[in-house]
């Protein structure tokens, strides 16, 4: 790959998605963009980059979409979802007992597994939420990922990565091509294409935000900006779930760790007594 081509494509990705690509990631760039090369019948990666340089907006969007990591799983890392079920949901039933409304944002939701894991957890706690309205919104920069998320049809590999077998039997219907999520869970989540580099405030305030394994792809300034936006969009007693490998030390002072190992944070302005109520149970 010509250095010029790499520099241009890497800059395009950073401007449009925040994704940081160092020179040693040239293989990744080429690997993920080759399907775009083939789809548009270019003869080489160089030809694709030449076309991107002309400013073809649709082609640029396709290339950015293709670069986005779509690796996700149901109940990824498991323990954060146990915390959500056993600690956060009971707290919410108390704190929001007047409004009977709570909102969850899954930022960088990819193909939807995380948002549906939240939905299944809430559905399983339905007794606590009789008469409540739960709004779960999943956003991602990638239109193809959002289309897949809305479609809610998964392969046998997908439904085995993290999903308890009883949840599979309860929430999915098997067909010839895989497993279709049933409408009772599917209808609980709304998806939309959204660039987290822009403001997220128009999406409204949230009681819980999951932004897991997104910041790992961003540079420091983009992380700082995103965490500021998240802080503004999170309720005073809200909870933020990051990936387990995304420490906030030196990145943001807007949050207090509830459990660093699990990537669970509360907003810094939260009262200490309330913070202690979010502690992770010793034994799940």
């Amino acid at each position, binding site marked *: 790959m010509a250095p010029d081509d790499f520099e241009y494509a890497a800059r395009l990705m950073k401007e449009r998605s925040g994704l940081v690509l160092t020179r040693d990631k040239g293989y990744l760039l080429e690997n993920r963009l080759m399907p775009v090369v083939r789809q548009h019948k270019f003869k080489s990666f160089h030809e694709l980059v030449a076309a991107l340089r002309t400013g073809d907006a649709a082609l640029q969007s396709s290339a950015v979409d293709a670069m986005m990591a779509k690796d996700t799983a149901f*109940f990824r890392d498991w323990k954060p979802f146990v915390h959500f079920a056993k600690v956060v949901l009971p707290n919410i039933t108390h704190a929001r007992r007047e409004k009977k409304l709570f909102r969850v944002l899954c930022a960088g939701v990819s193909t939807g597994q995380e948002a549906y894991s939240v939905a299944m957890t809430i559905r399983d706690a339905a007794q606590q939420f009789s008469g409540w309205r739960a709004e779960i919104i999943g956003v991602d920069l990638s239109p193809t990922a959002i289309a897949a998320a809305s479609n809610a049809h998964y392969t046998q590999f997908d439904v085995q990565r993290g999903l308890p077998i009883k949840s599979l039997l309860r929430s999915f219907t098997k067909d010839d091509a895989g497993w279709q999520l049933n409408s009772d869970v599917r209808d609980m989540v709304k998806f939309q294409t959204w660039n987290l580099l822009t403001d997220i405030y128009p999406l409204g305030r949230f009681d819980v935000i999951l932004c897991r394994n997104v910041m790992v792809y961003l540079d420091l300034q983009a992380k700082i900006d995103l965490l500021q936006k998240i802080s503004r969009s999170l309720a005073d007693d809200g909870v933020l779930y990051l990936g387990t490998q995304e420490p906030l030390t030196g990145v943001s002072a807007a949050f207090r760790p509830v459990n660093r190992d699990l990537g669970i944070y509360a907003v810094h302005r939260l009262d200490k007594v309330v913070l202690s109520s979010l502690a992770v149970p010793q034994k799940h």
Partner: protein
Amino acid sequence: MKLCLVVDDSRVIRRVAAKIVQDLGFDVEEAENGRKALNACAIRMPDVLLIDTEMPELGGIATAQALRKMPGGDKVVVVFCATENDPHFIRAALEAGGNEYIMKPFDSEIVRSKFLLLDLLG
């Protein structure tokens, strides 16, 4: 160290599964059918039984049912690992004493995530 007994009539599957489970920090024993698995359980009860359903001599479901009647057998985490992916069959396997179910083919990430939700890791 926790013990996982891997039971499958395919030597290749046993080796693949054993390697995955070893990498998760388990001691591993292997058996090629349910009868040999029960003999192994009588000597040393495993923490986890990772077992196929269809095997000669004694299948996985009958093995799990027999295991549950053995002293200490009720505490074993039974994970079926089988080709069958029909929901009715899976439901029956769970009712017969399974805690989890893995559909073949599987990979290390599937096994790791299932063991994690069963609280078997760390």
